């Protein structure tokens, strides 16, 4: 119980805590987009709300229809949000009249499905590696078999994408996996394949970004060809360029995503609130990495603790008869 031990302890515990607080001492490297990353481009101004993508998604992923209580939609698939049974949804912003599309006083469509983040929170937070990011395609996929159902991914995802089937006895997480099961058959994402207007197209993220740049460079109203299906499919149609907002959703959000959105209505009206450029997964892993780097700090701390415990026990033992350490050892004390 000398001062030197106490100081040592203070230094040990203080050091551990300080290590956790000093910002960016040994921050983890920033993740970058894989070379062969594939993704989707959703251009809300081309979307007509036919929901063919939702139907195709359900058919390709063996998902059941979902009913809701809104009048007139109790008999067919009409989900109100993503869920354990809906992993892709077209939603509508309604700000006014039906004859003005893509204006704040009219209406606009938006899509919600997995964004396949470059530095995904769900991948970082999953305790059992059920969420994984493919190193080649960058597709974030989920393994039901590994999942323990803790729903950390549901809570952590800044886009609110992973969902859970709370009403099932043996529940599971559901999210878009970019139809990776179809890729083996040489096909691509079903939602892009069926989209009649090319509002959703599939392709390498690099190509998608070129297409975005091309569209944004054209003056609103210019008639131009829009690809359908996937980039380079040859299937195109001509339509005028919309008056895009100066923001590509997913370009920078939480370190970038592989699904990119264009819109003529500000994204915050489409329930896509501003997000920082830094991935929370990076912040969290850097913090944990600093505290537990190589388990050096915890082991040093443990050594100090055991040392102190031994000394204290001796001190306790001096009052008692033996070198007991436990709470009960000094029952004969005094």
């Amino acid at each position, binding site marked *: *119980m000398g001062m030197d031990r106490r100081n040592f*302890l203070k230094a040990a515990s203080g050091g551990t*805590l300080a290590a*956790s*607080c000093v910002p960016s001492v040994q921050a983890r490297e920033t993740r970058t987009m894989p070379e062969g990353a594939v993704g989707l481009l959703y251009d809300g101004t081309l979307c007509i709300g036919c929901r063919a993508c939702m139907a195709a998604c359900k058919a390709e992923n063996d998902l059941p229809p979902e009913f809701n209580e809104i009048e007139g939609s109790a008999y067919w698939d009409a989900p109100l949000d993503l*869920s354990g049974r809906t992993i892709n949804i077209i939603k509508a912003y309604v700000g006014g009249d039906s004859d003005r599309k893509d204006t704040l006083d009219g209406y606009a469509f938006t899509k919600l499905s997995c964004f396949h983040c470059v530095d995904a*929170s769900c991948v*970082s*937070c*999953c*305790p*059992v*590696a059920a969420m994984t990011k493919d190193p080649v395609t960058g597709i974030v996929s989920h393994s039901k078999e*590994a999942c*323990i159902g*803790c*729903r*950390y991914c549901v*809570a*952590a995802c*800044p886009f*609110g994408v992973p969902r*859970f089937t*709370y*009403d*099932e*006895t043996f*529940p599971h997480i559901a999210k878009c996996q970019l139809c990776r099961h179809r890729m083996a058959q040489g096909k691509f994402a079903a939602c892009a394949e069926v989209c009649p207007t090319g509002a959703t197209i599939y392709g390498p993220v690099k190509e998608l970004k070129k297409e975005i740049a091309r569209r944004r460079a054209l003056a609103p109203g210019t008639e131009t060809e829009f690809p359908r299906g996937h980039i380079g499919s040859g299937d195109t149609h001509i339509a005028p360029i919309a008056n895009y907002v100066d923001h590509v959703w997913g370009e920078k959000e*939480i370190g970038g995503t592989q699904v990119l959105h264009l819109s003529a209505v500000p994204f915050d009206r489409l329930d896509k609130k501003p*997000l*920082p450029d830094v991935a*929370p997964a990076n*912040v*969290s*892993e850097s*913090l*944990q990495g600093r505290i537990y780097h190589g388990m050096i700090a*915890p082991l040093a*701390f*443990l050594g100090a*603790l*055991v040392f*102190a*415990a*031994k000394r*204290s*026990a001796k001190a*306790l033992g*001096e*009052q008692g008869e033996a*070198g007991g350490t*436990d*709470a*009960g*050892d*000094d*029952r*004969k*004390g*005094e």
Partner: protein
Amino acid sequence: MAGSDAHPAPAPMGGRLITPWTVFLGLLALIAVFFIGKRLIFGIGAVSNINDGYPWGIWMVFDLVIGAALSCGGLAMALMVYIFNKGQYHSLVRPALLASAFGYTLAATSLFFDLGRYWNFWHVFWPRYAQANSVIFELAVCMTAYILVMWIEFTPTVMDKLGMQGLRRKFEKWLYVFIGLGVLLPVMHQSSLGSMLVIFGPQINPLWQTPLLPLLFLISCLAMGYSMVIFEASVTSVGFRRPLERKILGSIGLVLKWFLIAWLIARFADLVWRGALDPAFVPGARSLMFWIENILVAIPLFLLWTPAWRGSPQKLFLAAVAMALQGIIYRINCYYTAYDTGDGWNYFPSLPEVMVSLGFIAMEILAFVIVVRLLPVLPAPEPSPNSAPAS
């Protein structure tokens, strides 16, 4: 220094196990068991209101996050007695350890039933699946290890009861390691309960979202631990009509005071440093809850300020309650008030959800009462009479 203080050896309380109170607690526990059965058969959604906006309900936030923090008495006392060598508090270690062991065990049990795919829980400990970047992984491994450590630390009590002195002596040679682990592990996972929110990023309001979350949760849980020691000692004293270790508790009050000061410094220095104090002055539920949280720190700080006040059992007790409440509110704030899960989401615990959490608390108290009556946990009054139950 410790030797000068006389403190009685622990002894079983004895007394009746079946009283109106234990029957009531047993009923609450049975109700919880019923709803857990329902959850196992029909799914979590059948009993709980959790949804994709609030995937973590009170089973996670109250039973685990808050429950584990309230069970920090064992850590707090072990730190004091074994690490900082304050032997005079020795008599409080066993009851605190026991309360912690039950608290943690039930928190983990509750979490098990909160897991959607509980049959896969072992994946966390299986190298093929384990994902070390996950805070929950760290939490699960650490908490499980700590629960084991706590029960190992508790075995001498059982050995005392069974009179296995030989085995106990052999065992004690290794006890230092367990004591060391018994401090390291809770320090790790209590801070992780805060780190868990870091990955929520912008979904947590800047008043609460900070890289300092692990430190804040650690200070807070220690303060709650000392509060719970005072609380449990007071409740045991009244409940079992036992004398109150007033002097010792007063000293713990002093320790608590310094933790509260440390908390306030860390909390506000961080907010000022990050320039994140502005939302505290925007009228609304968040700022209100922020100030309630801070007023609840100010109250115990005030009550514990002078040695004379720390000598008052009521002031000590109320300070402990306020501090425990502060810890609870701080955690609720972090996990619910600060959580912006997107527009349109609602969550309020359902009645079955509340009953399950209540049932777990009932089980905890019931188990504590049974164990202290049967095993040498609480210091025996001298001369030791046949103590009778108060209730």
